[in-house]
């Protein structure tokens, strides 16, 4: 088991990549505090992750956009686990719309979760990790940040901010606290993606799927959370990647190929 007794916080655990991550981490022997603002979804995902593993996953209700809430929950999680080795900050939101139409309200909402939420969770983790002189943080950006994404300008911009933030703390906190920080850019089938797909007209959906077939060298479509995403998360959380810091991992079957 590659994560035996690693103490890990995962945000956005209720569905998609977060849920897949806690399932994989539980199988690899980690002790996990799983966070989400969706209590019912989060509890269900945690219960599923605990099935067949050691029952080491615990749910905490948390909205990462709320600074005080994040620091409180992280303090409780640390007390429950006896420390914090890894933070995986999956939680994020997406909204579509023409770039010229985004309102300040749209933007504030997007920033509050994707940017402020990243900063809050990272700072709270840093505070705990620096006490033990080591740690690993995995943040989520997107190919949208690297290549742009039509109709998702606000999302792309927020993920660009995550990238710049993570690169910066990878150096800053690496030097000061021995905390390593990496970024993942996934192209994985998630409920967020399925919902977006469902919102398209049949014609657009078929056009999109046909385009994906050409765009993604491996598999011809978005990847699977358990088969394609989870092993990379295990690697980045484990000591196998302890010399990797400040890097971008595009888990996308070769889609875009915007970063080498």
């Amino acid at each position: 088991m590659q994560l035996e007794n690693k103490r890990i916080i995962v945000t956005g655990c209720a569905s998609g990549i977060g849920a897949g991550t806690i399932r994989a981490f539980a199988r690899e022997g980690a002790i996990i505090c799983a966070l989400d603002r969706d209590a019912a979804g989060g509890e269900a995902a945690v219960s599923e992750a605990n099935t067949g593993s050691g029952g080491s996953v615990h749910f905490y209700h948390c909205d990462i956009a709320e600074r005080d809430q994040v620091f409180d929950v992280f303090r409780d999680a640390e007390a429950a686990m006896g420390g914090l080795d890894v933070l995986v900050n999956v939680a994020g939101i997406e909204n579509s719309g023409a770039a010229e139409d985004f309102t300040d309200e749209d933007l504030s909402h997007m920033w509050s979760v994707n940017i402020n939420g990243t900063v809050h969770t990272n700072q709270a983790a840093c505070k705990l990790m620096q006490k033990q002189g080591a740690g690993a943080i995995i943040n989520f950006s997107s190919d949208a940040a690297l290549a742009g994404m039509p109709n998702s300008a606000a999302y792309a911009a927020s993920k660009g901010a995550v990238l710049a933030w993570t690169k910066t703390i990878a150096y800053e906190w690496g030097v000061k606290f021995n905390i390593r920080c990496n970024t993942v850019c996934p192209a994985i089938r998630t409920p967020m993606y399925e919902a977006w797909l469902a919102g398209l007209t049949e014609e657009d959906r078929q056009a999109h799927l046909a385009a994906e077939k050409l765009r993604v060298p491996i598999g011809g479509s978005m990847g699977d959370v358990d088969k394609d995403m989870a092993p990379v998360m295990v690697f980045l959380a484990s000591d196998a990647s302890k010399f990797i810091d400040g890097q971008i991992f595009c888990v996308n079957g070769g889609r875009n190929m915007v970063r080498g």
Partner: protein
Amino acid sequence: MDTELAGQVVVVTGATANIGRAIALAFASKGARVVAVGRDREAGERVTAEAQARGAQRAVFVEEDLLDPAAAIRIAEAAAELGSIAVLVNNVGGNVGTGLFVESDPNTWLGDLDLNLLTILRMTHAILPDMIERQAGRIINIDSTAGLVGDYLLPLYSTAKAAVHGFTRTLAKEVGQHGITVNCVAPYGTMAANPAAFSRGSRFHPQSDFFQKLGKSSPEDRGENEAPGRRAPERPGATGRHRRRRVVPCCQQHQFCHRPDTAGGGRDPALIERELR
């Protein structure tokens, strides 16, 4: 986590030293059938013995110099005797030519590109048809950070490694449709605990003087005979002593770093200015 590598045929070039050796042994520990390629038979046999000890299902050494254009085909044939190649690790290469580009000898360029780029192309070309036929395979090119950022004093090496990046992405697009992934890893400098186990040609071998020469800008500094006429002309402004193109000391944060940082890199610009004088 099961890597599903047990019994899989893995070819590692440049497997007799440092990164390649460590990669071959890591695959061995997962029960793979390891084909270790190198020039130094004694070092190769040390690798295969160690690979067997670590759990390799098979471990064979193939003595070949990849600079020989026919070597890649022979390696592919030798590996095929163990089964279809599941993984090719193109590790062979090396930053042999160090110094300022302006002072480099054009006659050495092709040699540097051959070692760091064409070896990878030839080896990949030799094994691809089989992978395409089976609609499966992994190709891992060991690149370098030099290919991403450009390493000062390693102009040809950095250029070749940047080309490997381009090749990797292009080939990934070409063969993804066949279920073959192509990726590269870009390490920075690495050191091993037991360099004496390495091949004699390794720059890390205790008898190598590579690192003594590294960072010295001219053949004269490196203790080599300087060709007449290649010395940089004296500058009119030099104050009474011979003035050669100077190598700015590195940022001094890393053993292998030769980054001249014009912005100062946190160091006192006046100090850099003094060093330049």
